[in-house]
């Protein structure tokens, strides 16, 4: 390594540069926080029902089979746009019915087919979960996924 880069210079570049990038990152994150709350997720209010739905989503660890906005496990379909795929993104009642029907039919027990477990979910929670997925579906995700297949 060239002699101009002494150890103390390398150290100073490391500390100085890291502080600089942390500051830039914090500033951009703060701006992104505002953008998320005021713009990209503002299409539908974050109601108590949506909050409950998120809780149901988490309590059942859905993320360890499905992806949501492309993040999660890759064992089961994307659900960030599932309400669009089902054609019920703007229809709360339809969203609930189709989700409820689907989940009550699980596990299918079909041989050689991936199995979705049976979940103990009350009607109120099922409605909340449907609302949560509709809420996620309306988020501005820069047009991702490329098509309804998710």
């Amino acid at each position: 390594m060239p002699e101009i880069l002494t150890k103390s210079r390398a150290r100073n570049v490391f500390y100085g540069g890291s502080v600089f990038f942390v500051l830039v990152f914090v500033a951009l994150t703060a701006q992104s926080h505002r953008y998320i709350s005021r713009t990209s997720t503002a299409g539908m209010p974050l109601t108590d029902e949506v909050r409950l739905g998120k809780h149901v989503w988490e309590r059942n660890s859905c993320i360890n089979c499905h992806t949501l906005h492309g993040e999660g496990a890759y064992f089961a379909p994307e659900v960030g746009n599932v309400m669009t795929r089902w054609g019920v993104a703007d229809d709360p009642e339809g969203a609930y019915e189709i989700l409820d029907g689907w989940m009550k039919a699980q596990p299918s027990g079909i041989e050689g087919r991936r199995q979705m477990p049976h979940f103990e979910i009350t009607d109120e929670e099922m409605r909340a979960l449907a609302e949560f997925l509709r809420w996620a579906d309306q988020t501005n995700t820069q047009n991702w996924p490329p098509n309804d297949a998710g």
Partner: protein
Amino acid sequence: MKYQSQKVAYAYFLVAMGLFGIQVLGGLLAGWIYVSPNTLSELLPFNVVRMIHTNALIVWLLLGFFGAAYYLVPEESEREIFSVKLAYLQLIILVVGTLGAVGSYLVGIHGGREFLEQPLWVKVGILVAAVIFLVNVSLTFLAGRKTVITNILMMGLWLLCLLWVFAFINPDNLSLDKMYWWFVVHLWVEATWELVMAAILGFLMLKLTGVDREVIEKWLYVIVATALFSGILGTGHHFYWIGTPGYWQWIGSIFSTFEVVPFFAMMSFAFIMVWKGRRNHPNKAALLWSLGSSTVAFFGAGVWGFLHTLHGVNYYTHGTQITAAHGHLSFYGAYVALNLAMFTYAMPMLRNREPYNQVLNMASFWLMTGGMAFMTFTLTFAGTIQTHLQRIVGDYYMDVQDQLGLFYVMRFGSGVAVVLGALLFIYSMLVVRREIIQPGPVAAPGE
């Protein structure tokens, strides 16, 4: 072993290897469920198996880092650890927390943020353990000789423990939740863990090659500078499609492209030190793991990461088997192999004997690395087909998955090789007491 308290590392490494076994067996089961989906589907669903696979991995890697710190800091600081009792207390808390987490997953009690599914009491336990660790190691560090290796190690460990705070912050807004979730996940594996990795690799190079400390230290600063300069804003490559602003597509693409640099630097560093080094250290297996780690990390984290990090590519590959391919090879190269390098180096000293059974250990390296490489290739092919059929043609998810069956069979086969390699490694570390193959006579010069 120069200091008695370094012995603490032994307990950490033992627990880490036990969890390593659980992790790969969980992975093997998950791989089998892909091949034969009805397996245990009602008793032990895929999501629970996957939680055990990923959580066991994270905990054993952390235990390996903690153990490495307890081994390395006394030697670098030239003094005993501040408190051996605290170190064991920390380990007990982590073991109880881990067993508690696995137990509650099995009965269906867990959170739902990926990798952070631990019940709250376990998360608090991890926080307490982290505080104990930081106090213990920092007091040792502050009282003794300060080197660049411990400097960087301490910085990495402090920052990674501080970032754990974000494991407790879970906004109701899903997009905010995701953004802060990456503060733990990305800023661990693509920033702070890299500091820990560089420090441990630097220590191993110092011991194994005998190169001047001065040279190694200068390299270390350059490596960690490139890691943080690229990795911090490189977080942007996770902010493309989760509701964050569009400018992240450019920031993320540009900076995460540079994330290849620290991994290339670490690989170059390891090889150049070995070439320059005059010392012929008897622990050849530790050298193999060190060089192997930096090389596979370059391919797994660097090359496979770059493969899908540009936003124009990621728009199509995001959340497919391409991600799984990258995840497996990068974790294996950067963090699994590095920990195994440290175990291989330290174990003979911790058990007070010469390096032994190098042949089986080296065989396990090739078995695991070969299996991991093959797994990465099969998942990359599967992901390429998935990307085309699902994201471009628009076929439905399960229709596409049904066409990938052959790849999942091959992935399971490579998983068998990895598990055998892992078990062989643990066996060679713990059980065998003699070298299997005696080295032949070496002709002395001039004879």
